[in-house]
């Protein structure tokens, strides 16, 4: 069992799970700064929501880690270990291969459209939360920790806006990537006109909605 990474919300371990030689365990650890009762409730609810979104995403035809086991009491999700590199690493490595970058960006847009068509909003779209599966080169979305189910164009537009900002802050020439992603996204997404219109609104005002008035 090895610790792969740790964030503010959870730790990710790599271990084995019976017939699967490698497996990821994501543990939402105890937050001592929260009231224990509240902490337990939040961790449990988020664990279950994440697992459900993962399964739902898989069902709508996009590539995401398979869920092996959910332990709501210890706030654990056992899931597939995806072999491959993060999208961030890939884009940074293939800085000059424009055709390749374009091809992968198009794939991202198509997958994202499928995800949104199934009303799953990822909530934390960054190039670190996408992977390129070794071998098949399919785009794998990971970390559904902030995901939820919603059919509002507002939520989908914010999802895109988050991605846009994340790209701009991590990759040089991000607009090239973004254009390719959005082009294929809007080709496949339902209600593309409304989402595009909302995205323009969100760009003007930022991620948070104005609560005054």
């Amino acid at each position, binding site marked *: *069992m090895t610790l792969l990474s740790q964030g503010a919300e959870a*730790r990710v*371990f790599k*271990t*084995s*799970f*019976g*017939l*699967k030689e490698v497996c990821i*365990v994501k*543990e939402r*650890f*105890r937050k001592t700064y929260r009231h224990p009762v509240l902490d337990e409730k939040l961790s449990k609810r988020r664990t*279950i929501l994440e*697992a*459900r979104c*993962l*399964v739902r995403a*898989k*069902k*709508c*035809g996009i590539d995401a880690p*398979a*869920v*092996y*086991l*959910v*332990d*709501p*009491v*210890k706030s*654990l999700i*056992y899931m*597939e270990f995806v072999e491959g590199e993060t999208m961030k690493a890939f884009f940074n490595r293939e800085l000059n291969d424009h055709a390749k970058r374009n091809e992968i960006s198009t794939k991202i847009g198509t997958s994202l459209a*499928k995800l949104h068509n199934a009303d799953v909003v990822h909530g934390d779209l960054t190039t670190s939360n996408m992977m390129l599966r070794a071998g098949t080169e399919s785009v794998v979305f990971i970390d559904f920790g902030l995901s939820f189910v919603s059919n509002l164009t507002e939520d989908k537009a914010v999802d895109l806006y988050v991605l846009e900002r994340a790209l701009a802050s991590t990759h040089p020439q991000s607009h090239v990537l973004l254009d390719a992603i959005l082009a294929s996204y809007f080709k496949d997404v339902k209600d593309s006109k409304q989402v595009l219109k909302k995205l323009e609104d969100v760009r003007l005002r930022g991620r948070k909605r104005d609560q005054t008035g």
Partner: protein
Amino acid sequence: MENITQIPVPSLFNPYDPNAASTETPAEAKNGHPSVFYALLFQNVSNAKELKAKVIAGDPELPQCVMVNPALVLSSFQLQTACSRAYMNQAQNNMKTKTILSEILFSLSPSLNIAESMKLFGLSDNSNSIFVLVPSADDASVDETTINKLKNLVQGDLSPAHSFSDLTDLKLLKKVYKLNDAVDQSNTVLEDLIVGGIATKGFL
């Protein structure tokens, strides 16, 4: 024992808690459950009705085992997940059924209805092939006496159990697990979805 497929039941993950009083490291934590299940496949079974009656009555003649309908089993990993889920429920005193063996059968099913799950995934009067899952002895070895007992009880041929998908009724499987609307229908994705369904069942 070339006729027997092994289904490991991995010990569950124990996060390291720096505040815990115990100095026991996670590796030393005891399983508390059998580490392997042996899956025996009987084909051309002629006495399913009799066996079913024995299972329901809890006949003491019948060794500890779970009898599963192979038409709804796609892979050994599906069985592993159901076993893990059942033992997790047991460890957390969260079992929905009375025994761990029925809990395994119930875990396999995506339904929350126990009777319906047993009917679909367990024996039926006219089954002619059966998967029998036998928990390992304490030292994870094959329990020969149990297997010999089963061979005497089940009137049928013990066949190699590695060919899981040969006996799968894909149409029924997809209906039961509600996978007809899944976009990608390849076997690997179906397995992932089935396992995901088993893993998330009952959590809202």
